[in-house]
């Protein structure tokens, strides 16, 4: 908690004949973060991949393309396969698969294009249904020219001006006039010109087929349905292959991924002609386990050096370490930046503050329960990964929203308890007065207590920022020593506390026009703190830092969003409720006074309004709570820029030895 996992640097040296067993040992352990070797020298070069690497990656490539073509998706419920079995049948299985799948795939693509071709012909034949000729009679003349097309006007009068020696067929197709004109070739130029002048003319191409259009069409449709049957059959065959082989493909994919990973890892090693050196990091607590395993598997023939000396902090890989409950909040840290090895990991702080801010912002029993229920549902759907973490964060936030909903006395914007608003009693859903807890009378109505709630949010802000500065002080102390920590962070703490004391005493005096209470001890302490802090700040960072003073004020003011977001969400809920209740469901205080239809309109408004407000209520508080963490809190101490710990290894799911 708060600190990343402690790491130890290990350097392993051995002869090359041991390399493979060392690699498999580390791969099975899944613990060592290997540092890339990059400074090549005379004796030590970057290692070469193990022999089977290229063959393995070839297999993997063809396997993945097959799996893509078949559309195979990972199946969590699948059992595991033995690696030895996989290994022995890999060659033959992949090549048969490749043959079967790709030939069928090609066939399907071929069938598809043939069907498309035939369908195009069918479309081009359809217009010729309007003409009483068979398809072959449109072509094959020596001295005749044939024009076919759509046209709106009558051609006869115009043609007769050219010649009387022609034959014109007219018909209708899809509500347009279609014609076929047979005319001696000598008149071709004139007719061409005539048709060009006709605006409505558009030419038709004759498909090179024989027979009456309806007969041809029937034959074509038969061919198409034959092709479609073939297509469906091939598809079914592929489906069968998919069913039969998907287990093998997934397992083989995993096996091959592991093997290529192993085969390519020497690229990170330093190797000479006969020896290799691996440099890396391992969690300190796992060192003994690693050493024992490695000595066992190599017969004690490799040399391990444990390097306790402090390396350059930036080179140490960072693995965040948190209790299970705070683990999901690492997601929020990773989204921002991985912390440096020496830095504080604030996940555990976020575990408290993020849901707290969210809860105060949303603060409604109804919305809170829905958010928590939705998060629970998502959590049970996605057992791992980012969505699972997000759902857990939302779940906690929903619970806290429900809790604050009780304190604020809100259920979908309706009051839960009876309370007085502007001197009038308003009846709550429960019909009872709120309980008093620790002499504070519930509910604390958010619209009624704006002033005190606003002060509360500022107080939360001051505490949160102070916490950030304390963490920053610690980080600076660790990295640069006490003096720098005081100059850089201590100064800000003094300015913040001093400023708060000053303003706390100044504000009442200003608003009631009293003289400034310079003699007040609290005022004095505040003034001294602020001035000392300012001097320290200038000493540490120069005069330019004065420009930064207002940011601390705006940082604190920024926390007013905790109230503001809540008020806007409660305001929208109130508007929706008032609209639907007073106007539709209970006009003039009478239930169903405007008839059942108006009441239904009211229900629709109520539903849509609350759905929209709920969506805003998930997004707004989430983003703003996060923003308070990232912008106001993190900037006080967090630098980030660490390297993530990525151990060499693989979590097997579908294979076993």
């Amino acid at each position, binding site marked *: 908690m708060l600190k990343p996992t402690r790491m130890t640097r290990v350097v392993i040296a051995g002869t090359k004949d041991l390399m493979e067993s060392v690699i498999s040992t580390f791969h099975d352990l899944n613990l060592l973060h290997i540092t890339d070797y990059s400074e090549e020298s005379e004796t030590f070069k970057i290692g070469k991949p193990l022999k089977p690497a290229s063959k393995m990656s070839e297999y993997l490539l063809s396997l993945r393309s097959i799996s893509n073509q078949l559309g195979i998706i990972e199946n969590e419920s699948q059992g595991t396969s033995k690696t030895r079995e996989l290994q022995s049948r890999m060659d033959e299985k992949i090549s048969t698969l490749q043959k079967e799948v790709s030939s069928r795939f090609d066939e399907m693509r071929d069938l598809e294009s043939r069907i498309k071709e035939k369908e195009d012909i069918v479309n081009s034949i359809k217009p010729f249904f309007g003409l009483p000729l068979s398809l072959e009679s449109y072509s094959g003349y020596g001295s005749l020219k044939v024009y076919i097309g759509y046209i709106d006007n009558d051609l006869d009068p115009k043609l007769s001006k050219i010649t009387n020696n022609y034959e014109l067929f007219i018909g209708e197709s899809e509500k347009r006039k279609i014609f076929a004109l047979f005319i001696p070739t000598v008149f071709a130029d004139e007719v061409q010109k005539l048709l060009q002048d006709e605006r409505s003319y558009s030419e038709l191409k004759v498909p090179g087929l024989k027979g009456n259009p309806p007969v041809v069409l029937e034959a074509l449709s038969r061919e198409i349905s034959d092709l479609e049957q073939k297509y469906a059959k091939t598809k079914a065959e592929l489906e069968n292959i998919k069913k039969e082989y998907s287990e093998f493909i997934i397992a083989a994919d995993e096996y091959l991924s592991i093997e290529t990973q192993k085969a390519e890892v020497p690229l990170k090693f330093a190797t000479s002609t006969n020896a290799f050196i691996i440099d890396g990091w391992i969690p300190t607590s796992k060192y003994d386990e690693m050493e024992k395993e490695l000595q066992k598997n190599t017969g004690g023939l490799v040399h391990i050096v444990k390097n306790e000396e402090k390396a350059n902090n930036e080179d140490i890989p960072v693995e965040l370490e948190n209790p299970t409950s705070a683990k999901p909040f690492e997601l929020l840290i990773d*989204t921002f930046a991985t912390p440096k090895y020496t830095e504080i990991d604030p996940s555990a702080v976020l575990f408290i503050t993020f849901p707290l801010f969210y809860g105060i912002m949303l603060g409604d029993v109804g919305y809170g329960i829905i958010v928590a229920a939705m998060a629970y549902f998502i959590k049970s759907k996605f057992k791992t990964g980012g969505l699972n973490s997000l759902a857990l964060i939302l779940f906690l936030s929903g619970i806290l929203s429900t809790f604050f909903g009780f304190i604020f006395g809100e259920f979908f914007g309706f009051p839960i308890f009876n309370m007085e608003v502007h001197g009038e009693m308003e009846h709550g859903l429960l019909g009872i007065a709120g309980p008093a807890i620790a002499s504070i009378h519930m509910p604390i109505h958010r619209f009624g207590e*704006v002033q005190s709630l606003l002060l509360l949010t500022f107080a939360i802000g001051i505490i949160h920022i102070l916490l950030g500065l304390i963490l920053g002080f610690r980080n600076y102390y660790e990295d640069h020593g006490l003096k720098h920590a005081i100059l850089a962070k201590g100064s800000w703490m003094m300015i913040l506390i001093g400023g708060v004391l000053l303003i706390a005493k100044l504000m009442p005096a200003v608003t009631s026009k009293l003289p400034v209470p310079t003699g007040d001890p609290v005022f004095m302490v505040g003034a001294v703190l602020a001035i000392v802090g300012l001097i320290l700040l200038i000493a540490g960072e120069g005069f330019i830092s004065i420009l930064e003073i207002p940011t601390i004020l*705006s940082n604190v003011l*920024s926390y*007013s969003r905790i*109230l*503001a977001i809540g008020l806007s969400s409660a305001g929208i809920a109130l508007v929706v409720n008032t609209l639907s209740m007073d106007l539709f469901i209970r006009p003039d205080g009478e239930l169903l006074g405007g008839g059942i239809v108006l009441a239904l309109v009211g229900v629709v408004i109520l539903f849509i309004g609350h759905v929209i407000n709920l969506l805003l209520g998930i997004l707004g508080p989430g983003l703003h709570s996060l*923003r308070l963490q990232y912008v106001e809190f993190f900037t006080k101490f967090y630098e980030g820029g660490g390297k993530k710990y990525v151990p060499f290894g693989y979590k097997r799911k579908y294979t076993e030895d």
Partner: protein
Amino acid sequence: MVADAGMIAIGAGIAVGLCGIGAAMGEQAIGAAAVGAMAEDEKFFGKGLLMTVIPESIAIFGLVVALILLFVFNV
């Protein structure tokens, strides 16, 4: 006193309105850039969304001023 209450309400409205416009001007530039970044890499969505709401503080300051006007001065 009625006139005062009216002026206070108008003042509160102006505070929220102008701050809203200011925040929107900030957000439009950031939003456009965030969409551009997302076109390059979809993983930017979360960060982009977060960046886009950063100027919203200005709108919230406006709301706070309005609330103070309405609830503190409007006694």
